[in-house]
C-alpha cells in the first residue's frame, strides 16, 4: 500500500516536472508545478516528516506558487496576441538545447554511478515514531539557533528589498 503510494507520487512528481520542462503555456506550467509540489509533499509525509509535508504545502503551494501565478497573470495575457514583440523574438539556438540535454544526461549518469556504488546502511532498524514537530522545534531553538536568527533577518531583508524593487519609479505617474 505504502509502496504503491510512493511510486504513484514519484510518478506524479516526475511527470509534472517533465510537463514544466516542455510546456509552452506558462499557466499550465504553474499547474504542473502545483502537482509536483503536492506529490513531493506526499513523499515527505511518507518519509515520516509530516510537519515538513504540511510546511511544504503552506510555503511552496500557498505562498511561493501563488506569487509565481501573480507574476504570470501580471505579465501574460490569456490569449497570446501577435504583438510586435513576438516578431523580433530571440530564437533559442538549437545547439543550446542539445548541450542542455547532454549536460543533464551526463549529470544523471555521474550521480547514478555514485548512488549505485555507495553502500548506504540504515542506522538502527526500528525508528520509533516521534512527533517531528517537537524534535524540530527543540533543534531550532537549541543547536540551530544562530541559523534560525539569520534566516529571520534574511527574510526581513528580502521583504524590504522586494518591496523596494517593485516600487513604481515611473516619473510619469
Amino acid at each position: 500500500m505504502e509502496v504503491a503510494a510512493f511510486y504513484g507520487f514519484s510518478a506524479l512528481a516526475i511527470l509534472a516536472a517533465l510537463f514544466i520542462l516542455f510546456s509552452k503555456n506558462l499557466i499550465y506550467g504553474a499547474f504542473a508545478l502545483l502537482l509536483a509540489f503536492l506529490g513531493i509533499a506526499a513523499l515527505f509525509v511518507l518519509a515520516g516528516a509530516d510537519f515538513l509535508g504540511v510546511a511544504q504545502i503552506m510555503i511552496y503551494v500557498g505562498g511561493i506558487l501563488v506569487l509565481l501565478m501573480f507574476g504570470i497573470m501580471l505579465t501574460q495575457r490569456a490569449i497570446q496576441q501577435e504583438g510586435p514583440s513576438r516578431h523580433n523574438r530571440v530564437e533559442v539556438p538549437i545547439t543550446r538545447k542539445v548541450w542542455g540535454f547532454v549536460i543533464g544526461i551526463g549529470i544523471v549518469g555521474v550521480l547514478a554511478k555514485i548512488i549505485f556504488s555507495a553502500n548506504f546502511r540504515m542506522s538502527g532498524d526500528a525508528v520509533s515514531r516521534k512527533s517531528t514537530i517537537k524534535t524540530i522545534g527543540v533543534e531550532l531553538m537549541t543547536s540551530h539557533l544562530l541559523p534560525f536568527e539569520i534566516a529571520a533577518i534574511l527574510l526581513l531583508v528580502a521583504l524590504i528589498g522586494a518591496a523596494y524593487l517593485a516600487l513604481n519609479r515611473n516619473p510619469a505617474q
Partner: protein
Amino acid sequence: MDLTEFLVKTATIFVVFVLTLVIAMYSTWAERKVAGFIQDRMGPNRAGWGGLLQPLADAGKMFFKEDFIPALANKWLFIAGPSLAMLTALLASAVIPFGSTFRINGHEIVLQGVESNIGILYVFGVVALGVYGIMVGGWASNNKFSLLGAIRAASQNISYEVAMGLSLIAILMMSSSLSLGEIVAQQHGMNWNIFYQPLGFLIFITCSFAECNRVPFDLPECETELVGGYHTEYGSMKLGFYLFAEYINMFISSAIISVLYFGGYNYPGMDWVYSQLTSALGSETGHNIATLIGTAVFFGKALFFIFFYMWVRWTIPRFRYDQLMNLGWKKLIPLAIFNIIITGAAVLFLKPVITAWLN
C-alpha cells in the same frame, strides 16, 4: 488496518462529508431568512414549509440553466476553477472533531474523520490551497473584472492568513499540541480558550471573515466596483459551486472557531451529565448519549457562528480596499504579535505563580 476499521473510517468520512454539504445547503436558506428577519420581511416562504425546500429548488434551477463558456476563455482552467474551489473547501472538514467517541460492542469510534497530530496545520494548508480556485477561475475567464477580483481575493487571503496564523500561535503555545482532538480535550468543561485568548479570538474571527470573502471584506465580488468579481463570467452550476464553496468555508471556519476557542463538544457540567447517564443507562448507551449531547452542543456553537456571519453581513458595510489592507497589515499583525508576547509571558511567569497559589 483491518477491514472493519477501514469500513468504519469510510463511513465516518462519508457522514462528515454529507453533514458538511447539508449544513452548507441549508446555510443558503438561513442566509435569506436571517436577511429577511433583519430587514423586517419574510424571506423565502413558497417552496415547502417556511421555504425549507428552497435550496433544492435553487439547485434544480442552477442545474437546468445553460452551461456557458465564453469564447475567449481558457476552457480547461475555466472548468477547473469552481471544481478546485469546491474541493479545497470540502477537504478541510476531514480533521474537525465533531464529538468524543461512540462505544459499539466494545469498539471506540472517534467522531472525527482523521485524527492527526498536525490537524490545525492541515487546515491551514488546505485554506492556503483555497486561493487557487478563485485565482484560476478569475484568470481563465479572460475578463478584466474577473482578473481584478481574483487578484484581490488572492492578495487578501494571503495577507490575512499571516495574521490568522499569528493569532493561532498563541493558542498553540497554551495547548502545546497541534492536534485538534487534543486541543478540544484540553478545554474540558468550561475551561475554554476564549477566556484566556479574547484578543486572539477577535483577530481570528476577523481574519476568518476575510478568508471566507464575507461581507465586510467581500471586495473580490464587490458589485459596485467589479460587476460580479471573479465569477462575473460564470453561470449555471459552475457559479453554484463558487457560491456553495463559500458557504462550506463558512461552516468550516465556524466549526474551527468553536473548536479552538469555545471548547468544541465541551459544555459546563458535562461530567455530572456523563455520570448520571452512565449510572442510569449503563456504560455503553449512557456514553453514547452523552457523546450525542456533546455533538449537539458542538453544532449549536458552530451554527451560532454561521448566524454571526450572516448577522454581520446585514449590519456592517463593505470596507474600501486600502482600508482592508491597512487593517490587515498595520493593525491585526502587530496586535497578533503583541498577543503572542503577552501569552508567552503569562505562560512563563504567571502560570507557575497561579498554580502554586491554587495549591
